[in-house]
């Protein structure tokens, strides 16, 4: 009798659990796994604008991608953007974390200020920095001229545009990197520092041989997340440069977006989406591998 009772209770529990999970599971299927499957399926089709139909065409879109000069250019620009942004953001994030890790009022205030951009929308960040870097009416050029330096083209210069966009996103994202580094720094036991100091280690040696290696997990986390973010750069390009000048800021997500929603080339855009998704997963795995090897040494 007792067993029957507990069985029905168990059944009740499972039913409740099922009902509690159901809404999230529906969302998971409808808005995560279904679209992924659809992206893959559509990438093997051809979209007809007139009928809105997709006809199966096999690997045609992928063949097209192999000889698409703009795709190659977008990937190269995206990689360049990543190379400028990620190392700088990591180094600055770590430096700022070390600066504000000292308890005190000024550290707390500085931390709050550095995190403002993280909660400011990317559109606002793009617009305000776009205006500050504006070649005619921007503050930055005004300052340069006051100092007797020549005004710069910034977003209108095809060599400067991508680095300027990278700086804007670093400004926006460095606060979060700082927070992760701060958590990592505070987790390092103080005894390591004391022992090193007793052994006569200098500041640089302590940083190089204690702080830096003990932050390994944080480095990996910040590296992987900021790399993914860098490869998905879109908003500042869309708001400020639209891929220009002369394709200097044409990046992969922007290219996909415009193929799909400006030129109605849905099928080809999905093929590039698949390539992007695979690329991102591959890069993440690669970075995790390398950093793990480092750990074993």
């Amino acid at each position, binding site marked *: 009798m007792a067993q029957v009772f507990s069985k029905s209770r168990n059944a009740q529990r499972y039913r409740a659990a099922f009902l509690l999970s159901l809404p*999230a599971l529906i969302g998971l299927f409808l808005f995560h*796994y279904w679209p992924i499957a*659809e992206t893959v399926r559509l990438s093997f089709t051809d979209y007809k604008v007139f009928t809105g139909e997709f006809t199966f065409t096999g690997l045609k879109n992928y063949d097209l991608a192999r000889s698409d000069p703009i795709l190659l250019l977008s990937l190269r620009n995206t990689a360049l953007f990543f190379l400028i942004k990620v190392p700088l953001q990591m180094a600055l994030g770590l430096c700022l974390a070390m600066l504000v890790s000292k308890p005190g009022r000024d550290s707390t205030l500085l931390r709050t200020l550095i995190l403002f951009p993280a909660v400011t*929308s990317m*559109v606002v960040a793009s617009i305000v920095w776009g205006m500050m870097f504006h070649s005619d009416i921007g503050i930055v050029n005004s300052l340069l001229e006051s100092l007797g330096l020549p005004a710069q083209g910034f977003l209108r210069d095809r060599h400067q545009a991508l680095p300027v966009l990278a700086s804007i996103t670093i400004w926006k994202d460095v606060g979060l990197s700082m927070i*992760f580094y701060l958590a990592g720094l505070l987790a390092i036991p103080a005894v390591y520092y004391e022992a090193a100091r007793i052994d006569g280690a200098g500041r640089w040696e302590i940083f190089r041989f204690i702080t830096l290696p003990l932050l390994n997990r944080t480095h990996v986390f910040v590296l992987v997340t900021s790399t993914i973010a860098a490869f*998905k750069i879109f908003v500042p390009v869309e*708001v400020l440069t639209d891929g220009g000048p002369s394709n200097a800021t044409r990046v992969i997500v922007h290219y996909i977006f415009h193929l*799909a929603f400006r030129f109605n080339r849905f099928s080809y*855009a999905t093929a590039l989406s698949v390539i992007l998704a695979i690329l991102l997963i591959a890069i993440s795995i690669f970075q995790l591998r390398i950093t793990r090897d480092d750990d074993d040494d």
Partner: protein
Amino acid sequence: MMTEAGRITAPNPGRAFSMASLSRVALYLVIVAVFATPYLWIAGSTFKTRQDLFDDLYPVSIKTFVPSNPTLENLTGLFTQTNFAQAFLNSVLVAAMSVTFAVTINSMIAFVLAWLKFPGRRLLFLVILATLTIAFEAKLIPLFLTMQQLRIDNTLPSIFLPWITDAFIIFLLRQHFAELPQDLYDAAVIDGCSFFRMYWQVMLPNITPALVSAAFIKFIFSWDSFIWPSIVITDESKTVITVALAKLFSDEYIRWELVFAGSFVATVPVVVIFVFLQRYYVQGFVRSGLK
């Protein structure tokens, strides 16, 4: 050493103006300048006349940031001559709905994952976390087509529905649920508490800080969203603040004073809320990122 936490250094007035402390002050000033200038410029320019806006730029001085003839014209212009009031309201509505639904739905499944042992539990959790590895940009096109097929494109719910199931929030909340003591569970079972009441009345109130973290991070995400609403919404009256602002900025004839006012309106509420909730924001990221 400066990086060492918690070290107390004796005050030394004779050294107060040493090179080291001077360069430290200089460093602080540079950081403050880089991070505060954009906000001061937005705030100052919002209350300037269009003429002053341009006149005060060359050379950069205190006048660039402090209006000499303060005016509310830009703000009133923004709300009466553009659809910004509607866009602001829509953003608030979308954020409120997004936060409410996301916290409810994800906390429910997070509770199940933490406290019910069932076959396939780990697998389900992995299937949920795997969604984090796929960039949403790669799902954009089918999502858009799905919204059209469901005939809910161009509606406010279509803006937040795709992001309701949120692996990040599930991960964060499952962690917090799992850390609650077994005794709490056992005591509730002995009292004859049903599984649903266990979630709603026993466990949920015990993870309030994590719920605030999840809610605030979701709010920021919703307020920031731009790509998706710019695709799925074509109707002016249903646009959100980021899209309205970008449109203002891309007009043929840019009304700079309105762009500043718009940026001001889009930023101030979030930054003010952040000042009060920053602890939850930071905790939310730190707890989910490094454990």
